[in-house]
């Protein structure tokens, strides 16, 4: 198991390097230029100067190598400096965002807390809703509850979040006035009142995303349960006189969880990636909103860095899912 994990880790290095190159080239060669963000009232000479100071005019491979160095050397050093108060990275040029003309990583750090709270809670809520629905739907296949669960999943799948979000805003924000339509990122939870405020402002984005997440996971749970219910060991367990409760929740559920856990683990990187549409809609201003803002503003360093961080997360969680699989199912060993 350990050798397997190590081998996978080593293999991840060339994979990530290749991904970084592809991301860099894709983002860079895509049509569009940061110059389009400069208003037409700015004369061409000034425009040229601005672009020059951003370093846009250097050849692409120079910028790629510089970015690699900054990502893997300068930024980690800055992280160490920040943690331990040292100054190894002094004088080194960091990855600078075109939009804000400031280093990219602190901007990401600023965005992460609200993304993790809102999107993370939504994911958790989604999983907590999905599992019981999936289990019971499978146990009582074709029952009224199962039909209802199927409908719920269909709605969650097919209605896009920008639509449910807007409907929620109009119903709960405008008509009923229960929840604020804009998320306040400066709110600090210090007492009961601010905690309630936080809950209220999280309610709508969490509901919208939770619905979408729950739809997918409940379907996986249901089909995995159904598959296991028909297995011989289930009949054996029942023949031995075990209670239905033990059969379903202990034997069937445990075996059915194997693929579902993988699905859930693979979905975790998307929490860090944020939710582009929902974040924008409710003004959560997390990573997703930062990414779309950077794309709109042709802020190449920001887009490249964010996309690459997502790539790292996805590769890592794939690895974690594979290892978890081995732990959950003793029949699977990689050695």
């Amino acid at each position, binding site marked *: 198991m350990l050798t397997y994990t190590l081998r996978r880790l080593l293999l991840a290095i060339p994979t990530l390097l290749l991904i970084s190159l592809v991301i860099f080239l894709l983002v860079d060669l895509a049509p569009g230029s940061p110059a389009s963000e400069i208003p037409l009232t700015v004369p061409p000479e000034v425009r040229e100067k601005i*672009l020059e100071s951003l370093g846009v005019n250097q050849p692409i491979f120079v910028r790629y190598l510089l970015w690699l160095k900054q990502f893997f050397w300068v930024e980690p050093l800055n992280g160490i400096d920040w943690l331990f108060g040292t100054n190894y990275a002094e004088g080194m040029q960091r990855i600078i965002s075109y939009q804000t003309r400031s280093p990219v990583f602190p901007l990401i750090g600023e965005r992460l807390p609200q993304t993790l709270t809102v999107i993370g809670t939504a994911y958790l809520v989604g999983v907590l809703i999905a599992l019981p629905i999936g289990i019971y739907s499978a146990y009582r296949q074709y029952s009224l509850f199962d039909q209802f669960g199927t409908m719920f999943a269909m709605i969650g799948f097919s209605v896009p979040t920008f639509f449910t979000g807007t409907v929620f805003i109009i119903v709960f924000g405008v008509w009923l006035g229960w929840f604020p339509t804009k998320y306040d990122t400066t709110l600090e939870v210090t007492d009961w009142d601010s905690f309630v405020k936080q809950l209220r402002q999280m309610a709508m984005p969490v509901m919208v995303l939770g619905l979408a997440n729950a739809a997918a996971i409940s379907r996986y749970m249901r089909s995995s349960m159904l598959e296991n219910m028909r297995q011989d060991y289930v009949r054996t367990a029942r023949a031995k006189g075990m209670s239905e409760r033990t059969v379903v929740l202990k034997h069937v559920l445990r075996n059915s969880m194997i693929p579902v856990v993988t699905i859930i683990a693979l979905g975790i990187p998307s929490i860090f990636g944020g939710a582009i549409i929902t974040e924008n809609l409710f003004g959560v201003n997390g990573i997703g*909103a930062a990414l779309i803002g950077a794309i709109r503003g042709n802020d190449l360093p920001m887009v490249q860095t964010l996309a690459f961080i997502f790539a790292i997360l996805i590769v890592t969680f794939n690895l974690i899912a594979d290892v978890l699989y081995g732990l959950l199912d003793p029949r699977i060993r990689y050695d």
Partner: protein
Amino acid sequence: MKLKTALLGAACAMAFAPAAFAERGADGNVNVLYWQAPSTLNPYLSSGTKDVETASLILEGLAGFNEKGEVVARLAESVPTVENGGVAADLTSITWKLQPGLLWSDGTPVTSADAKFTWEYCTHPEGGCAQAARYEGVTAIETPDDLTIVIKFSAPKPNPYTAFVGGTSPILQAAQFANCLGAAASTCTEQNFGPIGTGPFVVTEFKTNDTVSLAANPNYRDPAKPAFATMTVKGGGDAEAAARAVMETGEFDYAWNTQINPELQAAMAGGGKGVFLNGFGTLVERIEMNMTDPSADLPEGERSTTKHPHPILTDIRVRTALSMAIDRQILVDVGYGNAGRPTCNLVPAPEMFASDNTGCLTQDIEGAKALLDEAGWVVGADGIREKDGKKLKLLYQTSTNPVRQDFQALIKGWWNEIGVEVELKNIDASVFFGGDAGSPDTFQKFYADVEMYANNFDGTDPEPYLAQYMCDKIPGPDNQWQGENINRFCDPAYDALVKEMSATAEMGKRAELAKKMNDMLTKDSMVVVPLVDRGRLSAASTTLGGVVLNTWDTELWNAQDWFRIK
């Protein structure tokens, strides 16, 4: 409706004027929504409106513009003019006097050295200063004493109100930015995100592209202002959500640029929690005619260059007919509602510079047809006009944007009616306005017959804007397609007028010249076909008093006078 809104606003301001004399910080918090969130608070590092306007709460210049476009003193004692001796008779220098006793928000005195430093900061060759145009022609800044700033120009400057005037060129604190000159500008994150200023507010927390938290400046020069103790500027979402947050849910007191379609404007105005404010500046949506041949048959490097005149559009009768076929009022109703009005002028404002040119406002399809007949374009079997075996066919391009695509469809309909075949093309804005010399789709390259976009000028002086149409500013391969004379218009008589204007100081005469140039480009030649004068549309809560929409400076220009209507 517009008048009613204005009158209501005025009435509110009158009725609650006494409230403005309340003490500093008495009115609590005010919530402002900039759906395009501010990225930095240093306006010299970003030309984005959102950044410049938010920064204007903290940083100020010597003077600014009021809602009528007049220069009003801010940090200066008064506005220097030739009459009061502040501007040299030969127009080569201007002398500003700072108000005595001014303090930065950190308590240190504001001196003329700060202004001089700001000029050095922005004109540093490696800094990439976004507002360098405000300091164009400034050769030196002298500081004979702590309160006097003498700005010297390389040549007579009839409009000396560029450096340190308006939200785009505020004064930075020399002590704070001393280590941020040139290439070091982007390493100064702390300074750029938290500048020390003289404005009514100071930054307490800045979350990039998200939220700016501000508090009343304890050292603001008027001890009774601002009425609000704190201000929050929140970003994110879109124009519609922003309008809703003020007009329907009342969560925010002011929302910037709530440009939404006319039906939604009407629906939201009924909410009763806020009012839409609109004001008109110089932004004009227009169709530009290509005076050169964009044909793909020409070798690369010769397309859309002055080597080959346009085969169809060089005839003024065709250009005029195309303009006559357009019903501008319908365009306004479909696209902008209260935030737009039809115009025939390239320079629609300030009032003294606006020509009385209204000839294009009524649509005349029959007249357009007659004009094309006269020009020798006769209707062929398929309804398309032709002349010497050549069809009257135009490629009409613009950037991707729902309103522009509506405009394209409508105009195509009218042009089809007069027998012109139209092919539409829309290009992603980041490419169209990207200026990449390697791309065939930039608006400067103009590989199309006509194109549509909007442009305006900074401040109140149209001179640099009108100078864009000089012969030597035509984009072409030799200047990496960087010129501003998009139509490739070239008229020595026009160039002469530009020269004359640059040497004229008398305002009446300047206005006359500007009008003449405007007419030469629009009604006399129809090279530029203006469509809509696009205003600003913002939303303010009914409980927020003192708001005056200003299109000549930043929208937050008078935030120190805002107060809560109780």
